[in-house]
């Protein structure tokens, strides 16, 4: 059981390395830029897949959590506290390494929050907001749930768009690189492209391991029972409310982490990242990947995000995602990759059940 779970993970790592080598051999290393960005979007989407597929809860506001992560980090790391150097609190923070002095592109010196500290704050913030929002929202069902999450997304969007500190419509640019180890940092610098690619996909792999372990654990079985029949799960003594909430928070945190790193990778963030259309896109990707099929979602996320970011859809970008939503939901509500696999599993389960019935 355990080994079978590791094989796909190894395959994923293998594919990541293989793609890098192929792009290197083909002289197409620049594909890695879009693949790296796709990796961060994939982080959000697999979290959402867990929420939609396993806990059966739709969220039309996940771009909001991405924005919370990205904007928090962007604001904190571009904040200039140099003027308050004398303030004892600022001085203390600077001494503790929470604040860091750096130079901007045009030679001005800044004193702003260290990216690591900003990242912690951003993720904590997403965590707390997901908790606070999750408790009442997840009590709702069906349309009410969809509307509440849509409302949450809209509120985040209008706050981002209406606030001077968030750069309003222009967003925030010149976000500094995010230092990792040994002088490597998350940034758009083309000399760091390969390392950034590996870092992003490492994050995705870690998240996949986490999520796969989760869905095959006791909690995971409980989650699947929620998707099947919530009342039944409740009757079986599964604390559905708690599981729904923790899944929601986990997916929100994944989105926020993605937001933090993609913002540093891009060197900025704009309000389009918080828009409802973005949230809808994530839902579309989960739908086409197969609700509850983490691998299907991962594959479709890479394919669709990569194509979209490279501009293959041209002016039909939104239309493509709208079309995907309809076609998939009409003809293959289980997704195109997940469907066959799950039908097979279903058949086996059925067969077993019939056999055991016969033996009775």
């Amino acid at each position, binding site marked *: 059981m355990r080994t079978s779970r590791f094989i796909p993970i190894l395959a994923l790592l293998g594919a990541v390395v293989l793609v890098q080598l192929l792009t290197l051999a083909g002289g197409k290393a620049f594909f890695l830029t879009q693949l790296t960005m796709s990796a961060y979007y994939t982080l959000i989407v697999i979290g959402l897949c867990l929420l*939609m597929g396993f806990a059966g809860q739709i969220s039309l506001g996940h771009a909001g959590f991405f924005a919370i992560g990205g904007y928090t980090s962007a604001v904190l790391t571009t904040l200039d506290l140099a003027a308050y150097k004398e303030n004892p609190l600022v001085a203390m923070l600077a001494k503790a390494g929470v604040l860091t002095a750096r130079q901007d592109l045009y030679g001005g010196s800044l004193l702003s929050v260290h990216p690591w500290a900003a990242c912690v704050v951003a993720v904590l913030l997403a965590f707390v907001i997901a908790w606070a929002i999750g408790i*009442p929202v997840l009590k709702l069902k*069906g349309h009410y749930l969809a509307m509440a999450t849509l409302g949450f997304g*809209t509120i985040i969007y209008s706050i981002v768009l209406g606030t001077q500190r968030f750069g309003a419509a222009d967003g925030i640019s010149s976000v500094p690189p995010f230092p990792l180890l040994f002088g490597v940092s998350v940034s758009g610098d083309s000399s760091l492209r390969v390392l950034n690619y590996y870092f992003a996909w490492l994050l995705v792999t870690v998240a996949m391991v986490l999520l796969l372990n989760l869905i095959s654990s006791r909690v995971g079985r409980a989650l699947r029972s929620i998707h099947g029949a919530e009342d039944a799960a409740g009757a079986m003594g599964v604390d559905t409310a708690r599981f729904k909430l923790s899944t929601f928070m986990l997916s929100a945190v994944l989105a926020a982490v993605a937001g933090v790193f993609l913002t540093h990778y891009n060197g900025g963030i704009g309000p389009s990242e918080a828009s409802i*259309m973005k949230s809808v896109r994530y839902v579309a990707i989960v739908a086409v990947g197969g609700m509850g099929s983490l691998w299907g979602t991962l594959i479709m996320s890479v394919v669709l995000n990569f194509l979209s970011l490279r501009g293959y859809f041209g002016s039909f970008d939104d239309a493509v995602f709208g079309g995907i939503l309809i076609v998939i939901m009409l003809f293959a*509500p289980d997704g195109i990759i997940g469907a066959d696999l799950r039908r097979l599993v279903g058949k086996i389960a059925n067969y077993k059940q019939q056999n055991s019935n016969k033996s009775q």
Partner: protein
Amino acid sequence: MFFELFFQYLVAGLTYGTIYAIVGIGFNIIYNTTGIINFAQGEFVMLGGMTAVTLYGFLPLPLAVIGAVLITMVMGGLIEMVFIRWLVKPTVLRMIIITIGISILIREGALLVWGEGVRSLPYFTGNEISALSLGGVRLSPQVLWSIGVCMVIVLFLNLFFKHTMLGREMRACAANRDAAALCGIPTKNMITLSFVLSAGIGALAGCVVSPITYTQYSIGSGLAIKGFTVAILGGLGNSMAAVAAGFILGILESFSIWVLPTAYKDAISIAILLAMLFIRPSGLFGNKEAMRLKDF
């Protein structure tokens, strides 16, 4: 001056309110017969307005409006027949996603057909600057038109649902689809009809408010969110309540501007919606009894 201002804000609120209310009613009609929240409802409003503007190029205004309403009704029916009719017991999640997809496709389609330009119908009476003055409070005649049309729609729906056989059949279908089928009522046709009807109402709304708000390919989703808010605030499925909730939301928004910066106007109205959902999902005017005896 204070009273004059007060009433001016009130008038502004009524203007927003009617727009929200008409969209909200459209949501309710489909919700009632199908249990589906049609996320593409805002697109019907846009389609109505855009079609009317196009028709107005070679038809007199009343004919252009009627034509636009009819064309949009046909579109509504077609959409239902193509995307929804043949689904066997779709889940709510699936329906939400499908209607979102439809809304995106209509929007992008409109962009292809009409481009990104902003259009509007002429004022039904008077022009852009004419205003009725009521003791210092001024309002555009078009606001009266939209309030009037909203009232006519509500009246028409009440008569239709309460006093015609077809209306009763739709209500029966809404209350209990299986039981309606057991009466021999072709439930699928009733659902198509509900799409036709709400598309028509949306389109009419789109025509009436177009001189005030203008139409553009992308106005649908913004209106849909507001209409949705109103439908839920009033209590899903209750058209009269949606109108009342529309006015309440419009007036609240309008007065919030009096005291607060306007940048967060939308955030405020949606926060109200969220609070409503958390505290009282049956809506302002809904109660448990009404939820049980679901009615229009």
